[in-house]
């Protein structure tokens, strides 16, 4: 008998809950009220200004205008039950956070740490080479006022696969004083162009398109000379390639076949280098769970959605082929003569026409059954393979012409031959 998964899950949830004592409201309510106080303490501007506690320089005190009138703030911001020499509880990296280094684990004390640095959002997107804006907040969630200096501002680190590969220059100059009363928070709106880590003194390049984890850190020097490093993140960042090199941006999420334009950025709105789930061309593809089930490998592939197959070589063939995983659409293959680039190049275009359309065309790479040409854009590479009549690959007298086109995501190998082979995007083998 088939398993009723819904009932099984409900049974499991009920059983798990029965093993634990009832959830006590009091500790949760204490945390809720403390969090509300931390969110609203910055609104008591008069008291803070009188104490001269407004941070200067790159940190600006937050007024949280979205919160309804809060309970009265503490009568004095200086009364604290915590001894002054007690160590601060801080969300802090357990190792160095810097260029070329593995991202260290973060020590995160249980509950709401005294000091923590939070990005205001969980994920964001930026075009390669353009300015990224991040809203971050330094929170003093404890019961002790913070009196420190912040020599270098908030540092931002970009990591891939657990290693820091990028950063940006610290914003502005140093903030001379950071006085953050207990329960207060200050915001630091950051802006800069993400760049790669430069290891040999050469000028750093803009961070390449792809997915990154963003980490934050701020080094504080306390009044007694002790140093603290407060860290935060990660938040997810997708660096996109921006506008395609030659194709105009498409607003239709599912263009008709004859309106699809191929470029180094992708096929119409289907962008290489971006995840299928959130791709602008998500409507153009769908998951076929049974495809390749008999191939011996893992079943399921992404396939075109809503595009009628074409008959080529006497067989119905997909309009395009796609290779993708959770992280990105990595490759799109087009063997159809219907799809063209913005310059009108497609299957059947002669080599002379191809070279005339693209003076910056690279190649050719001599393959066993084709010649490979390519155009590199910010977020991907458009590859075109040509064949002539040599070797009987095409009918006698056929001028050398484009037989297939591919787009590869940036950072993936592209300049290699696949014509007349089983190597097709999303293939079973």
């Amino acid at each position: 008998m088939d398993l009723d998964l819904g009932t099984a899950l409900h049974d499991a949830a009920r059983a798990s809950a029965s093993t634990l004592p009832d959830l006590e409201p009091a500790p949760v309510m204490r945390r809720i009220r403390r969090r509300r106080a931390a969110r609203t303490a910055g609104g008591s501007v008069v008291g803070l200004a009188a104490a001269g506690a407004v941070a200067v320089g790159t940190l600006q005190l937050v007024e949280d205008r979205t919160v309804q009138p809060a309970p009265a703030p503490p009568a004095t911001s200086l009364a604290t039950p915590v001894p002054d020499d007690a160590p601060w509880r801080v969300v802090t990296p357990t190792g160095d956070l810097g260029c070329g280094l593995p991202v260290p684990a973060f020590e995160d004390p249980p509950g709401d740490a005294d000091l923590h640095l939070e990005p205001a959002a969980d994920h964001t997107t930026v075009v390669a080479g353009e300015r990224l804006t991040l809203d971050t907040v330094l929170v003093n969630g404890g019961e002790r006022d913070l009196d420190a200096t912040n020599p270098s501002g908030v540092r931002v680190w970009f990591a891939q696969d657990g290693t820091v590969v990028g950063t940006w220059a610290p914003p502005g100059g140093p903030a001379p004083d950071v006085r953050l009363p207990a329960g207060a928070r200050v915001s630091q709106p950051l802006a800069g162009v993400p760049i790669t880590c430069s290891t040999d003194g050469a000028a750093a390049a803009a961070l390449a398109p792809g997915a990154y984890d963003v980490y934050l850190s701020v080094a504080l020097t306390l009044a007694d000379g002790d140093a603290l490093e407060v860290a935060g993140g990660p938040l997810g960042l997708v660096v996109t390639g921006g506008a395609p090199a030659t194709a105009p941006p498409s607003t239709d999420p599912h263009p008709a076949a004859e309106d699809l334009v191929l470029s180094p950025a992708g096929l119409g709105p289907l962008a290489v280098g971006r995840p299928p789930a959130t791709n602008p061309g998500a409507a153009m593809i769908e998951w076929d769970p049974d495809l390749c089930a008999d191939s011996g490998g893992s079943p399921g592939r992404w396939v075109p959605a809503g595009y009628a197959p074409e008959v080529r070589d006497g067989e119905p063939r997909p309009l395009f082929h796609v290779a993708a995983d959770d992280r990105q659409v990595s490759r799109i293959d087009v063997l159809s003569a219907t799809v063209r680039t913005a310059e009108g190049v497609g299957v059947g275009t002669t080599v002379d026409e191809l070279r005339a359309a693209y003076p910056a065309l690279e190649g050719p790479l001599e393959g066993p059954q084709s010649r490979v040409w390519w155009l590199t854009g910010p977020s991907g590479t458009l590859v075109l393979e040509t064949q002539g009549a040599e070797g009987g690959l095409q009918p006698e007298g056929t001028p050398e012409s484009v037989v297939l086109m591919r787009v590869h995501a940036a950072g993936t190998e592209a300049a290699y031959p696949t014509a007349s082979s089983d190597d097709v995007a999303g293939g079973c083998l």
Partner: protein
Amino acid sequence: MSTQDDVVESLIATRGRALRGYAYLLCGNLDDAEDLVQDALVKTFSRRRAGLELDSAEAYVRRTILTVYLDGWRRRGRWAARLHLTAEPSQTAGPESSTGDRVDVVAALRRLPPQQRACVVLRFYEDLTVTEIARRLAVSEGAVKRYLSMGVHSLEGVLGPIRPAPTQTLLVRER
């Protein structure tokens, strides 16, 4: 005491177990489920919300539990010490069962990647439609179908054939 605080305390007292059960299905670990529910309650109610009632309060918290769970997966640096992201059974995995089925389901669910696990729980436990799941997770419907397909396929490898989820959306409370 404010009206909202009354609602929150009532929610904790009457629905705390159900919320922890839901969180447990997502993260597969009792300790993490406890933390997940507490964090979600604090995140949800640290802002004052007009017109809050028990039903809507629970809906808010469930959404936040899901968000915090998935964000915890993305925020690997802060959750690394908790190891709840691994496919290995946690040290405080869950209750022993008088039948093997219940433990098998949780163990099988724990082996799924977080987004597949979330989609399976939302589809089979919360009885949401694909469209509702896509909206909840802010992904395309195609992606949800894929996660469900892969998740169910993986579960069937361990649990055997699974009855398809109902096609209608049901308003479900804890059974």
